[in-house]
């Protein structure tokens, strides 16, 4: 990555200072991971590992950090270790240390002095000031290590000595909740490890501008990886919970598919192809919900794409850029951030009585279409704006009219952007639940999907065409998931409600993530294509 980093990484022989800093970094990482493991209950909080109690290990790791940091700071100060520290660790660091020490001071005062505001307040202020001054007054190498070392040592002592152990609880007066040591200790260690990591990373590069960069990068990097880890865990969790359900009775060749009169073996996934309700299903599935979702998406797209693209063309190609376009822009952005439940309310008040009199697919399509519309408009506009003016000029210079230019040059060139936008938008509305509760949902576990195609009827009285299925309620994946969670009266020997819910969640996740992947992929593809040719 950064060249600064690269050079530094290969600099010189590893000195004792580097070694200590590396050890501190490694120990903080271990403590960090172990604490998360404890919170996720992968590690037993009362268990014994490598001969020590888990909490003693965690507390001990803080001791190690404290000692290492003290060495790193003092070593640099007394010139045992090469470094280029600044005059002071800086105000931000001072403020943070002050805050941390203020918490320590406040708690300590409350512990020994009582719960009066004067007592813990003055304790907090005194310690806070001390911490702050200790951080900013001495040179950077001392200011950014010693206050932390002291703090970590203190926390480590409290944990190892058993003042705070798994059974201990903190019951603050302002809430009914209680905070047990079994959860507090890992939280403390996580934060302690982050502090130690930052400080050690700084020391590793000899403080100064380079050290600050190193410290910041480690801190940000670790935070971001934890965040990604949590997000990935969420997805993994759904997959783990839902996969068994989804694959119940599935086989690679068990199914059959008819192609040109020949019956061929085919993949069989009953959970995906079966209906949930009815009597004759061994393995209830989500087929009607998938069909319902597809109809919803199809309707929304048919409604929103022509409107959105049309409006985008008008706004970019025809309209004078002025107050009117600005108004439309504010309106579309507003529409884009309007909560989905508000769309649902609107559908309930405005569309339901006028169209179907009750929940129906058609109203659901329209409401989702309203939600899709601003996204299609915004992305189409961006895409059309991104078409280089050179194309328009070239076409005009050949004596081609505006509309012909739009049709033959602008729209084709903007198409990739529009398509990508639409796919991403579809991914979004396919998982939308809230408005469906109000305007769409019918039987949560139907025994048949909506038969839209078969239901067209023509007549001589207006409205000439009717489609009963479109005007009836149905089920869709997110709606079905909601029903499984809340109603859950899904009684079938094959699955419990929750199992069925996880299976539905997985199918929904696969569908939506699949759509997103196609969208993101197509954007990358089109971008590459555009840049390479």
């Amino acid at each position: 990555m950064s060249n600064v980093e690269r050079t530094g990484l290969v600099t010189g022989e590893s000195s004792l200072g580097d070694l200590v800093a590396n050890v501190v970094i490694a120990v903080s990482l271990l403590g960090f991971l172990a604490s998360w493991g404890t919170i996720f209950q992968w590690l037993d909080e009362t268990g014994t590992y490598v001969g020590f109690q888990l909490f003693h290990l965690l507390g001990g790791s803080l001791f190690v950090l404290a000692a290492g940091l003290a060495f790193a700071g003092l070593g640099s100060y007394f010139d045992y270790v090469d470094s280029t520290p600044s005059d002071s660790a800086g105000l931000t660091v001072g403020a943070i240390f002050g805050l941390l020490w203020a918490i320590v001071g406040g708690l300590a005062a409350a512990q020994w002095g009582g719960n009066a505001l004067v007592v813990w307040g003055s304790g907090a202020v005194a310690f806070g000031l001390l911490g702050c001054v200790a951080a900013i007054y001495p040179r950077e190498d001392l200011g950014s290590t010693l206050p932390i070392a002291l703090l970590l040592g203190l926390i480590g002592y409290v944990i190892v000595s058993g003042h705070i152990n798994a059974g201990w609880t903190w019951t603050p007066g302002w809430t009914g909740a209680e905070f047990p040591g079994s959860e507090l200790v890992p939280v403390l260690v996580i934060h302690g490890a982050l502090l130690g990591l930052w400080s050690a990373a700084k020391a590793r590069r000899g403080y100064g501008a380079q050290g600050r960069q190193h410290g910041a990068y480690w801190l940000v990097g670790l935070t971001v990886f934890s965040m990604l880890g949590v997000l990935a865990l969420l997805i993994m969790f759904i997959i783990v919970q839902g996969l068994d359900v989804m694959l119940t009775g599935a086989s690679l060749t068990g199914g059959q598919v008819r192609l040109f009169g020949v019956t061929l073996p085919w993949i069989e996934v009953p959970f995906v192809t079966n209906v949930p309700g009815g009597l004759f299903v061994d393995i209830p599935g989500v087929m009607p919900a998938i069909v319902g979702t597809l109809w919803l998406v199809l309707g929304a797209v048919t409604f929103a794409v022509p409107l959105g693209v049309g409006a985008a063309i008008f706004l970019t190609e025809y309209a004078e850029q002025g107050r009117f376009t600005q108004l439309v822009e504010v309106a579309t952005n507003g529409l884009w951030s309007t909560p989905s439940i508000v769309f649902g309310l609107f559908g309930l008040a405005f569309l339901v009585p006028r169209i179907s009199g009750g929940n129906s697919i058609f109203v659901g399509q329209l409401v989702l279409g309203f939600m899709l519309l601003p996204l299609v408009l915004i992305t189409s506009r961006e895409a059309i704006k991104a078409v280089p003016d050179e194309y328009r000029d070239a076409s005009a210079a050949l004596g081609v009219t505006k509309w012909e230019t739009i049709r033959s040059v602008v729209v084709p060139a903007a198409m990739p952007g529009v398509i990508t936008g639409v796919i991403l938008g579809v991914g979004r509305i396919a998982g939308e639940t809230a408005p469906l509760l109000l305007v769409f949902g019918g039987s949560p576990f139907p025994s048949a999907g909506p038969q839209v195609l078969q239901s067209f009827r023509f007549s001589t009285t207006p409205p000439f065409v009717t489609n009963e299925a479109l005007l009836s309620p149905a089920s869709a994946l997110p709606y079905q998931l909601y029903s499984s969670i809340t109603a859950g009266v899904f009684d079938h020997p094959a699955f419990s409600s929750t199992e069925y819910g996880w299976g539905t969640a997985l199918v929904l996740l696969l569908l939506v993530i699949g759509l997103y992947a196609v969208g993101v992929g197509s954007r990358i593809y089109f971008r590459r294509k555009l840049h390479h040719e």
Partner: protein
Amino acid sequence: MSNVELDQTEDAQPDQTTTGETDERVREEWLDYDFAGETKLSATDLDVYYGDDHALDGISIDIPAESVTALIGPSGCGKSTFLRCLNRMNDRIKAARVEGSVELDGEEIYQDGINLVELRKRVGMVFQAPNPFPKSIRDNISYGPRKHGDIDKGLLARLLGRDDREKERELVERSLKNAALWDEVNDRLDDNALGLSGGQQQRLCIARCLATDPEVILMDEPASALDPIATAKIEDLIGDLAEDYTVVIVTHNMQQAARISDQTAVFLTGGQLVEYGDTDQIFENPRSQRVEDYITGKFG
């Protein structure tokens, strides 16, 4: 360029007033200048404003048919603006306001009811950076004629058997040959035009312009984005084109202007046309001091 002027940086600037007067005199002189060919395009008292910005200041000039006329001058002096006046591409710029008159074959193009489509078919344009459409080479060439209804190869036409493929094939071949590109691309007419090199793309743009059979070709620094070899090819091509077409070319490269043009017009800052005449005369013996300063590289 010789090295004689290299140390003249510190020379005193000529007095501003004097220059003005000189220019005035010079100008009257070249207004009477008689070119060999007949006049194809003629601008009279042309002023262009961008908002309050006076970009062209009373330009009057006659451009003869079937020859190459070069427009040179420092950046921002209005060369491109003037060029775009000649096929009314300035109409596309909201802020631009044009006053005065331009005649094509004696017919005023700034009159109400003028058919812009027809005008731009007759006065084609090639831009600074090559800008082929992201379509196949063939479609790039036939784009103009198809939009004008000269070639019809839509689905309907195909169904009705009124397909103009043969006509299209001929047109593509002729245009590409005229633009000296046929030999390089005839085996990949259906490839995307964006896959061509810069020089090929620029010649494709010229071919595309030729396909609509224009009378005048305007070129705005057509070689400035190209490497020397591609530039040389384009320059050769321009020489050939001048046999059948009236070519007006903007360039910032004075050697290029000198090499390829028959007449040269020098614009200077402020949107003034300071001198216009035979290329040899302009470069060897400019009448105005400012033009001489410009040509010898004192500024710009």
